[in-house]
């Protein structure tokens, strides 16, 4: 009972703050609500017994990506942005796309109606580490290569040119 109460309140938090992300006029508020939504999703990960994923979500998304968004918004924002329309004129078409995607998702998800969990939650960090260092070692190394490339690319694109 308490479990489903926590789940539904976290789900309401995630959905309402995600709606605030896409509808807020002020981009700083959008970035703050993005952090709130990601933190709520981390709570849902914890309830799905994904404890390492919970920690990674907090560290990478809430602590890294949301803060990076806030930094960039504050670097690029201007006061005149607050008086401009932030939603483009094609929003009815976007609603139509969302409706079609909702119908497709509903058709795909209908076959998984209600299987419940069969096992009590257990810590998964040790097994995840063994899997990452064992069967998934090559993708793990490829991800580290990708992160290095992204770091170099970010430095390359965001440096100031001395002599244009």
């Amino acid at each position, binding site marked *: 009972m308490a479990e*489903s109460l926590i*789940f*539904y309140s976290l*789900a309401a938090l995630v*959905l309402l703050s*995600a*709606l605030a*992300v*896409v509808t807020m006029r002020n*981009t700083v508020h*959008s*970035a703050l609500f*993005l952090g709130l*939504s*990601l933190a709520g*999703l981390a709570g*849902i*990960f914890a309830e*799905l017994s*994904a404890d390492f*994923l919970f920690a*990674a*979500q907090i560290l990478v*998304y809430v602590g890294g*990506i949301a803060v*990076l*968004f806030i930094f*960039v*918004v504050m670097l*690029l924002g201007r006061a005149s942005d607050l008086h*401009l*329309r*932030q*939603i*483009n004129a094609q*929003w009815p*078409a976007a609603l139509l*796309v*969302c409706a079609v*995607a*909702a119908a497709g*998702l*509903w058709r795909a*998800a209908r076959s*998984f109606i209600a*299987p*419940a*969990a*069969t*096992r009590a939650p257990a810590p*998964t960090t040790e*097994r*995840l580490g063994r*899997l*990452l260092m064992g069967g998934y070692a090559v993708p793990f190394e490829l991800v580290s290569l990708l992160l290095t*490339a*992204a770091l170099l690319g*970010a430095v390359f*694109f*965001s440096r100031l040119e001395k002599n244009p």
Partner: protein
Amino acid sequence: MTLSSCLLLSGALFLIGIFGALTRRNVIGILMGIELMFNAANLNLAAFNHFLHPGGVAGQCLALFIIAIAAAEVVVGLALVLAINRNADTVYVEEFNLLKG
């Protein structure tokens, strides 16, 4: 908490992300919508792992890879936004016409 409620939540989050990515004029808002879609996919993976394969961790492993790749994507994307903003002095996507001849 059942699998279907998790799938409904992730579907709704994905649709909100699509709506944000399609309708925001600000390129940073578009990147935020893309992040919401990544998170919906992660929630799907964790939920399927918990309910359909309770002994394994392969879904969580894939979700970790998605988190790492999303971090790389957003870092490069925001650096590109900074570079474009330095040249075009705008963050609105309909004014990004540097490549138009």
